[in-house]
């Protein structure tokens, strides 16, 4: 039982991975859910655990896509090497972007990440010879997962690739959960709750923010690489403002209280997007309205809403809050 509660989020992640193939008929859609769940996890580590609202997650997603694409196209590296390279590039870029934007706090930080995101977009757009500009990087191969020419996991069909991504997802989720539960994660929470206090206690706030940023960049880079390999293209759209915006929105809609909420948010975003965009191409308007509702009425996101509902459904025991008793006695 103790073990069960200790690993409950990892078990939820595994359950998600197993449930998606039952619920969805399209392997690529299921894979997309997991990929964006990874990107959203990276964003959640910043927003939920460090209190940094980054509008630059698209930078790392896009760089991850390009890195994986270029290394697979020109160097024919093995699958895992391409993913690792994307993570390293994502982490390095995040360290640079973070170093520049952490100099300012609060709202300035959000503005800076957005502006730097635009900078990377125009950089990718300008370097057409490397990135393919508007068309993106085309014909990216999808190698199998193999060691010394022995195939461990085939990735040819969409569901086979889903299996591989699912494995990566569960491992990454468990690792990020470990980070969040570690002393590092608790320190980040302390910084989120009160930056001045954390600094007064003696924590090097900027360094911790930078560490969070670097981890987030690595995860998002990984997601970008998996995405490029999924669709066979590293599109310009993955480094665009819209990519950063979507990642942030799915994170917020899911909720920032814990990491699994991001999986919910990404799932809702990707699946609702897939379903609604066939019904009504302007479904983003509904998303805008949802965003307004979330910021006005359900500030803890879907996860918070769910927790509230469960709390309300639980049988009422003796009221713990003494003020509640008082109110009952004198109506």
């Amino acid at each position, binding site marked *: 039982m103790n073990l069960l509660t200790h690993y409950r989020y990892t078990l939820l992640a595994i359950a998600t991975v197993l449930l998606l193939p039952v619920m969805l008929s399209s392997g690529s859609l299921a894979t997309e859910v997991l990929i964006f769940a990874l990107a959203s996890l990276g964003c959640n580590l910043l927003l939920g655990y460090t209190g940094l609202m980054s509008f630059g997650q698209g930078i790392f997603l896009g760089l991850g896509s390009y890195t994986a694409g270029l290394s697979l196209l020109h160097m024919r590296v093995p699958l895992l090497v391409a993913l690792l390279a994307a993570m390293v590039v994502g982490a390095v870029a995040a360290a640079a972007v973070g170093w520049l934007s952490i100099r300012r706090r609060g*709202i300035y930080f959000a503005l800076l990440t957005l*502006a730097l995101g635009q900078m990377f977009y125009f950089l990718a757009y300008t370097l057409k010879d490397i990135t393919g500009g508007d068309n993106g990087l085309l014909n990216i191969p999808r190698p199998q997962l193999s060691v010394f020419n022995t195939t461990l996991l085939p990735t040819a069909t969409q569901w086979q690739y889903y299996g591989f991504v699912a494995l990566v997802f569960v491992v990454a989720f468990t690792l990020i959960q470990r980070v969040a539960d570690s002393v590092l994660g608790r320190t980040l929470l302390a910084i989120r709750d009160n930056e001045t206090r954390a600094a007064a206690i003696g924590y090097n706030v900027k360094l911790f923010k930078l560490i969070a940023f670097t981890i987030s960049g690595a995860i998002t880079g990984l997601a970008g690489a998996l995405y490029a390999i999924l669709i066979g293209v590293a599109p310009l759209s993955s480094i665009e403002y819209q990519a950063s915006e979507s990642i942030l929105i799915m994170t917020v809609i899911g909720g920032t209280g814990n990491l699994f909420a991001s999986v919910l948010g990404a799932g809702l975003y990707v699946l609702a997007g897939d379903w609604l965009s066939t019904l009504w191409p302007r479904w983003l308007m509904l*998303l805008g309205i949802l965003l307004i509702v979330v910021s006005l009425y359900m500030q803890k996101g879907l996860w918070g809403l769910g927790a509230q509902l469960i709390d309300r459904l639980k049988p009422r025991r003796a009221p713990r809050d003494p003020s509640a008793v008082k109110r009952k006695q004198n109506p």
Partner: protein
Amino acid sequence: MSIYLLQIINGIGIGMLYFLMSVGLSIIFGLLGFVNFAHGAFFMLGAYICFEISGSALGFWWALILVPLIVGAFAWLTEKFLLRYIYQLPHGFHILLTLGVALVLQEAVIVWWGPIGKEIAPPALLEGVVVLGSFVYPIYRLFVIAFTALMALLLWWLLDGTRLGSIVRAGSESTEMVSLLGININRIISLIFTLGTGIAGMAGALAAPIRGAEPFMGVEALGIAFVVVVTGGMGSFGGALGGGLLIGIVQSLMSTIWPEGAHLMIYVAMAAVMLLRPSGLFGRG
């Protein structure tokens, strides 16, 4: 006349437009500590309403008068029914709510006018070019420089020479103190939000004959407005003017030196300023 001088004139024109686009964002931030992520969407709305009015019997001149009023009315409603309820929340929710408003506006524009951009002709009076030495220059762009300069003077007078201006500047120091002095700060906030956003709409209308109107120009405008206020320093009139001009001239000069990288260099300039002076060129502290 050297090409660089011409590009500097051009850059002043672009910069003044950038100033007009960002000044509202900056003043609202100064007063409320609030950043409106829908600011670019209101700029885009201004361009589209300009397209609609200048294509009708009223023409471009009426558009220039009506657009700020209409966009201002939209902004006033947004403030009254949405923003007012979230001022006390952490700034993350300000961002999310206005992001939602921006998405709704962007999609509404696509529903109304379609996803393909619109061209807007400059008014007949300002069509054509003037000859400057060995170069030709569109008259409309000269008009934009003159008109935006006039607007900047008006705004400067409003903020520096009137009672409202002193209240706004005092509010930037402490809204609480201002309301303790018996001033209805909520009305001032509502007024300034309407005014600042209406000006962004006017910038959209002015920019429309130069760059057309398309649904995603709002995001681009928002990015540039952020660069302007971050470079110039946030919360002040001077910061928006200085930042706007600097960014406009950088963009314009770079478009002769390295055309593909002109947009990229705006952001590089911002990054450089951030490294040297994190509070912006004209920012305090």
